[in-house]
């Protein structure tokens, strides 16, 4: 469905709710996706797909809600769905649910945003995309014959329209594209895998990669590193001065701090007190800042919330002090923070939750680091820069953690764990490599341990946020590397028994 057709659908659904004395939010979405996966020189899968549907969130006049969704757009389906949503809201009111009437206070917004993609979905025929991806995949295989390689490419276009009883009608287009190389290497009887990606909003990522082969270089470097990790020893568990790359920094910012300031989590968050954001709390050293907001051209770009409000850029931590949270219209006030349009949903079939978009961890105390083409050259440059500025902690290991494999946080207790691809001791001039080891601790201690940054800002670390069982694009980053002091509450895992 095209943007105009979706807007018309939302208007027609809303028109059918005029007799209802409560409030209704209608979300409609049309999603198209093309994907392909190549493995060891041949196509494993090429797929196309589309998903159109809409959801109706109804509120009784007292603020009890019900939700109904359908991917069937046939005549009669709309009326049935509206009736279902209203009926469920009324049942909910009867069981004494906690009412929430905040949506009545939301400002009316009317906007129709143009598609920000440079290459429209479908502009490059699928057959041509297949050829381009096969070319990139073949080059990679030829360059690293010992690896088992999979290459995948996915492009998505989501057209959203959100309409509300107050006349709000917001529509926008979210295009996304990602090229990924996954390699498995074996050495000394062990296997390690590695994943590198290049993301953007459309097929331009393929044209750019064919031009500069930046992802290929990264994948090859990571494969060499993975091979070295296969034979690497384990680190003794302990507390070390750390240097983390921007992928890990994004993980830390997203999992450890971002989720802890989302307005729906404040009753259970380590950054909340009596259900309110602990504004004014010093959580990091002066000069540390944490910012969340959509960036045009980014993997997780979304200009409006799924409740039809403008998405704002929020400085969560300013100069080391907790300043603001990510609030949606339903829970921001109760959580003691302003509404920032943070509601996002996986699809029309999901209830929006307060979520991050692109989150970045930035510091004022910055050491220069020129980007270099190859990983180990860059690691050497990190070591030299640290020595030059007297930042290498003498007499102990200074460990550089490379690659973000994911992580998990308990926002209630503040416990976090992250995993990396491998570790390098930059205090040792031979730059010895160690097996990946769990990076864990308490989130407030981790933030407090950040003492500086290395290099320019890199905000293209992408992922998928799984909060609430939904899958929503997320992204972020920091300076190329962040420096962290050793802290008794932040540790690297341990040796086998």
């Amino acid at each position, binding site marked *: 469905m095209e943007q105009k057709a979706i807007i018309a659908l939302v208007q027609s659904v809303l028109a059918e709710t005029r007799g209802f004395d409560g409030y209704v939010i209608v979300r409609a979405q049309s999603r198209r996706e*093309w994907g392909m996966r190549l493995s*060891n020189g041949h*196509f*494993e899968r*090429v*797929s*196309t*797909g*589309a*998903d*159109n549907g809409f959801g109706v969130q109804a509120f009784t006049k007292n603020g009890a809600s*019900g*939700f*109904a*969704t*359908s*991917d*069937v*757009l*046939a005549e009669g389906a709309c009326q049935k*769905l509206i009736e*279902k949503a209203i009926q*469920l809201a009324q*049942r*909910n009111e009867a*069981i004494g*649910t906690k009412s929430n009437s905040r949506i009545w206070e939301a400002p009316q917004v009317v906007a129709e945003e143009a598609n920000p993609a440079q290459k429209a979905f479908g502009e490059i025929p*699928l*057959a041509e995309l*297949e050829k381009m991806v096969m070319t990139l995949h073949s080059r990679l295989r030829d360059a690293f014959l010992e690896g*088992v390689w*999979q290459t995948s490419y996915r492009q998505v276009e989501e057209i959203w329209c959100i309409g509300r009883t107050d006349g709000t009608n917001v529509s926008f287009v979210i295009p996304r594209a990602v090229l990924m190389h996954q390699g*498995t290497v074996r050495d000394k009887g062990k*296997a*390690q*895998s590695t994943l590198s990606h290049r993301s953007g909003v459309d097929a331009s990522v393929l044209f750019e990669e064919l031009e500069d082969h930046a992802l290929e270089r990264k994948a090859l470097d990571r494969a060499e590193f993975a091979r070295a990790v296969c034979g690497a020893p384990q680190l003794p*568990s302990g507390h070390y001065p750390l240097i983390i790359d921007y992928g890990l920094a994004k993980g830390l910012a997203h999992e450890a701090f971002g989720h802890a300031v989302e307005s*729906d989590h404040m*009753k259970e968050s380590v950054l909340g007190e009596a259900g309110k954001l602990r504004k004014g709390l010093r959580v990091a050293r002066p000069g540390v800042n944490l910012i969340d907001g959509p960036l045009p051209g980014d993997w997780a770009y979304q200009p409006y919330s799924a409740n039809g409000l403008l998405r704002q850029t929020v400085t969560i931590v300013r100069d080391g002090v907790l300043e603001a949270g990510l609030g949606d219209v339903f*829970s921001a006030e109760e959580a003691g923070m302003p509404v920032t349009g943070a509601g996002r949903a996986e699809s029309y*079939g999901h*209830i929006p939750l307060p979520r991050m978009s692109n989150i970045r961890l930035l510091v004022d105390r910055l050491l220069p680091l020129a980007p270099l083409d190859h990983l180990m050259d860059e690691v050497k440059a990190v070591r030299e820069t640290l020595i030059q500025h007297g930042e290498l902690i003498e007499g102990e290991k200074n460990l550089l953690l490379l690659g973000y*494999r*994911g*992580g*998990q946080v*308990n926002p*209630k*207790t503040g*416990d*976090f*764990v*992250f995993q990396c691809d491998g570790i390098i001791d930059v205090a040792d001039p031979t730059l010895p490599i160690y097996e990946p*080891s769990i990076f*864990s601790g308490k989130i407030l201690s981790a933030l407090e341990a950040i003492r500086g940054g290395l290099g320019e800002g890199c905000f293209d670390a992408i992922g998928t946020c799984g909060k609430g069982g939904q899958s929503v694009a997320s992204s972020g980053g920091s300076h190329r590397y962040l420096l962290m002091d050793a802290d008794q509450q932040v540790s690297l*895992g*341990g*040796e*086998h*028994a």
Partner: protein
Amino acid sequence: MKLVAQLEELLYQAQHTPKKEELRLSDWRILVHESEAVSLGIKDNTPGGVYTPPSYRQGESGEVFLVWADGKCSQAMVQLGSDDDAGHWQQELAQWRQASYEDPDAAHIPSPAPVTLVTVEDRAIHAIFSGDGQILFDQVKRWLTDKPSKAKMQGSIQTAWGYRHVRTSTGLAVTYQQSQFASWFSFDSLIGGGFAKRRLSRPEEQEGLWARTLNLYEAMQIVAPPVGPHTQVILAPSMTADMLGQFILPNFSGDRVLEGQGAFPKESFLKNKLVFHPHFSLLIDPLRPLELGSYLVTAEGVPAVRTVLVHDGRLQSPYLRIKDSVRWGAKPTAIPQGMAGLYLKHKEEIPWGEALQGVEDGVLVLAVLGLHTQEAVSGSYSLSAPHSLRILKGQIVGKTDVKLTGNFFTDLVAPTTKAALSDLDTFPYLMITTGVQTL
């Protein structure tokens, strides 16, 4: 007109009387789901709040797999359009053709084979959709009434019912009804319990799950002595499932084995290499009535069969979809539905109550942080498990925070590893000797 009927008509015509010769099909397969689902949640002790309201979902969608006359393949997700416009489907067909690719091993639609019947529908669930869904509201009310007074409760109940249609150009035409019921709850986001099957839970199952969770929650309020280097680690059934899902199941996926991306090469399967202790066997069984992993036919139309992956510790077969089975030179196997349908068996399993009595110095791990970040191929893990439960002299005595370091393949080979049966779960408690430290 139903989606499955529209697709059948379209693909039959494209096979026998195509509108354009370049759009001629030689074979095809259709999978369509028609479903309805209702759900209700609890957040922070509030039932049906704005983030977890009572919800209804209706869907009719599926996927097609096509083999064109020139042997190329296409696959696409499909859904019911806003009308039955034949022009719409012809456009789709042309786009699917454009997306076609060479994959000779996949271009194979088997002839229909006899289907073994297994019950996958609970009529009581169907009644929820034809009635008022009161059962969901009653269950939530009961939870909130019975919960510990100081606990902050989260929870959810979801039930679904619908039709599954599989059609192939070789003559398979299967339509059956299936149902699903899933519920979970947690106290203070630390201790929880869950149920997921193709039937409603029975009162004794609800009571058992509730009582177990309550006992663990009470133990969690007491601080216990720290673990020592010889403390035995016991994985709770849900943890056993999570570890198998992270380290074992991916390495039995036929495509990963064939592409050399798994922990075990093809030769190891052909030689029935010993990879677990001989007491362990692992199988996929989609023929257990009303279990979540049960089905009549796979998404590719292959009838359900029991498939042994590991027998007495020795590799038998990976799980094989049609394409992988062609490459492997064997019949397609059963396919797990996530972790549902997978079963780990130990020859000397004893009931958990009995096993617990014999634990002098142990720690019961209920959940870990960051399991999904661990390397599946190597089997190595380095995990933190805050809020584990200490066991001393056969009794759960309180909470402790631990860090685990080891290798799950090594754990499954070790003669010291034991399993204990849980009457509330499909996976056993797994009692292992591994690296454990205070967090």
